């Protein structure tokens, strides 16, 4: 059954043994960040963490690492906790095919029960904020979805954007928000600022687990995240109308902040330890004025630790990055079999493809650079044959070690766009990009000696079954 809010999903995690409730008193710093950092080091079945006894707070409830393991990601998709990664991606692809699923508008959202407006607005009153990493410039809201609309088409539901962007709390009613230029909110902001206007935003904190996944999924500009959430849930996504902006926000959110990105204003922000495993540096970033806060009784603050991969964010956006790249490539090139873009939000991607003719794999690699997400990511592309599983890194390494002759298989393309958070970019936002063609050359590309591959023996499949039976019998 799909999960309608964060609370019900925490119960599901609890029932599955995937939520660790920590009732001992902990310090807000460094304990909360350190615990969330540590849980990411426990491996692929790590639990979510829940804290409700934090020094100095009287009413804090904090959830961390909610998506931070393959087990939790599977449960978010309503799959068995032991579902293999490749199968989770395959199921993601199957559900994606059912897009769009229109949302369901529900009345009486829990967050409408409590309100602060104008001078009463104090983000610190509602959210138990804390620092994650040593060099962070302040306390961040880093797992909320930000809803904005195209200023030129404010009634266009499909162009309403729902995205996760980092948010620094800079005052009781002031936030700093990072619109990465390649992301949809930056297109909205640009139009507003060209008109000399503010950009209204609604920020939903603490959401059902599918909303967090679609908020980090690079959809096309006119694809609705709510309609994709419906596809991934297998049921319409519940939404409600935010009272100040009139925007559509998740019905189940714990807290909704509404206000505006103040047009044509920038102010020092950061640094922040980012998903790249590096700090962003301090930048002059947009400023949000919060005019209204709506919140549920006893709200739960959901946050996410990020640092040197893998941490929660890599699970959260791993499959969510693979699938749109796969779908967009496949639309042009049906030969594409699979995409593994789970590395740093797709800064590196491995693509398995069939080949029409010599040079085809390089064309697929170049296409990946020019899909919307590729404009800001896809810095290193490895293209492998269709019989190589891109999720099986030993197989990928075999392809790299045997199918590549750098004389003709390495394309180094100068001065392309990349998100400026890429620490290797110089100047920030500009980088060479690399395509490694690790496929077997086909006609008329006659390079190398690939006519005699060693393939599994025809009888091997039957022997695999036989050996498994023998091992099982021995174990029994």
């Amino acid at each position, binding site marked *: 059954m799909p999960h309608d809010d964060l609370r019900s999903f925490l119960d599901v995690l609890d029932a599955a043994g995937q939520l660790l409730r920590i009732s001992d008193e902990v*310090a*807000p*710093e*460094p304990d909360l960040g350190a615990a969330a950092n540590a849980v990411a080091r426990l491996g692929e079945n790590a639990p979510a963490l829940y804290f409700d006894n934090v*020094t*100095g*707070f*009287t*009413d804090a409830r904090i959830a961390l690492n909610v998506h931070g393991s393959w087990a939790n990601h599977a449960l978010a998709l309503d799959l068995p906790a032991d579902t293999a990664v490749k199968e989770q991606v395959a199921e993601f692809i199957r559900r994606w095919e059912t897009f769009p699923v229109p949302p369901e508008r529900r009345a009486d959202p829990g967050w409408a029960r409590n309100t602060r407006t104008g001078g009463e607005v*104090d983000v*610190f009153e509602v959210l138990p*904020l*804390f*620092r994650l990493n*040593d*060099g962070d*410039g*302040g*306390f961040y809201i880093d797992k909320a979805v930000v809803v904005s609309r195209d200023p030129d088409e404010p009634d266009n539901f499909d162009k309403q954007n729902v995205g996760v962007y980092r948010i620094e*709390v*800079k*005052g*009781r009613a002031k936030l700093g928000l*990072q*619109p*990465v*230029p390649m992301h949809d909110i*930056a297109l909205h*902001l*640009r139009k507003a*600022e*060209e*008109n*000399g206007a503010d950009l209204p935003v609604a920020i939903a904190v603490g959401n059902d687990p599918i909303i967090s996944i679609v908020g980090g999924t690079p959809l096309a500009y006119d694809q609705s995240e709510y309609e994709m959430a419906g596809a991934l849930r297998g049921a319409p996504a519940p939404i409600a109308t935010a009272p100040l902006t009139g925007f559509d926000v998740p019905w189940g959110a714990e807290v909704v902040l509404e206000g505006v990105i103040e047009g*044509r204003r*920038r*102010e*020092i*922000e950061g*640094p922040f330890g980012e998903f790249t495993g590096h*700090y962003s*540096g*301090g*930048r*002059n*970033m*947009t400023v949000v004025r919060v005019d209204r806060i709506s919140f549920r009784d006893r709200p739960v603050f959901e946050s996410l630790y990020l640092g040197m991969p893998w941490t929660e964010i890599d699970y959260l956006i791993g499959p969510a990055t693979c699938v749109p790249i796969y779908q967009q490539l496949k639309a042009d090139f049906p030969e594409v079999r699979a995409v593994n873009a789970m590395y740093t939000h797709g800064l590196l991607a491995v693509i398995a493809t069939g080949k029409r003719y010599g040079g085809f794999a390089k064309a697929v690699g170049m296409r990946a650079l020019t899909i919307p997400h590729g404009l800001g990511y896809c810095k290193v592309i490895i293209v492998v044959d269709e019989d190589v599983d891109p999720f099986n890194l030993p197989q990928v390494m075999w392809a790299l070690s045997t199918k590549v002759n750098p004389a003709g298989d390495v394309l180094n393309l100068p001065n392309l766009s990349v998100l*400026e958070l890429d620490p290797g970019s110089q100047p*920030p936002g500009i980088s060479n990009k690399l395509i490694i063609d690790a496929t077997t050359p086909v006609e008329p590309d006659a390079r190398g000696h690939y006519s005699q591959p060693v393939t599994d023996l025809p009888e091997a499949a039957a022997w695999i079954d036989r050996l498994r039976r023998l091992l099982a019998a021995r174990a029994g």
Partner: protein
Amino acid sequence: MSCPRCDHDTTATLAESPVPGVWQVLQCQRCLYTWRTTEPARRTQRDAYPAEFRMTQADIDNAPEVPSIPPLRRSGGAG
């Protein structure tokens, strides 16, 4: 108390602990560094603050604009 990060001497209090007297959240009024008074010394004391995260007025002045502010559209349409 000066800012651990930029050594500026003016701070504002953003928040006080709901349990009275346990901590405050302070903010530098120049570089906007924000910290809780109960955090470790490496985040709260100038002499212990790591060199790689220190900030100067020049750093603030020269920080890149993200995203850059676009030119205003010209008002009025073509005849």
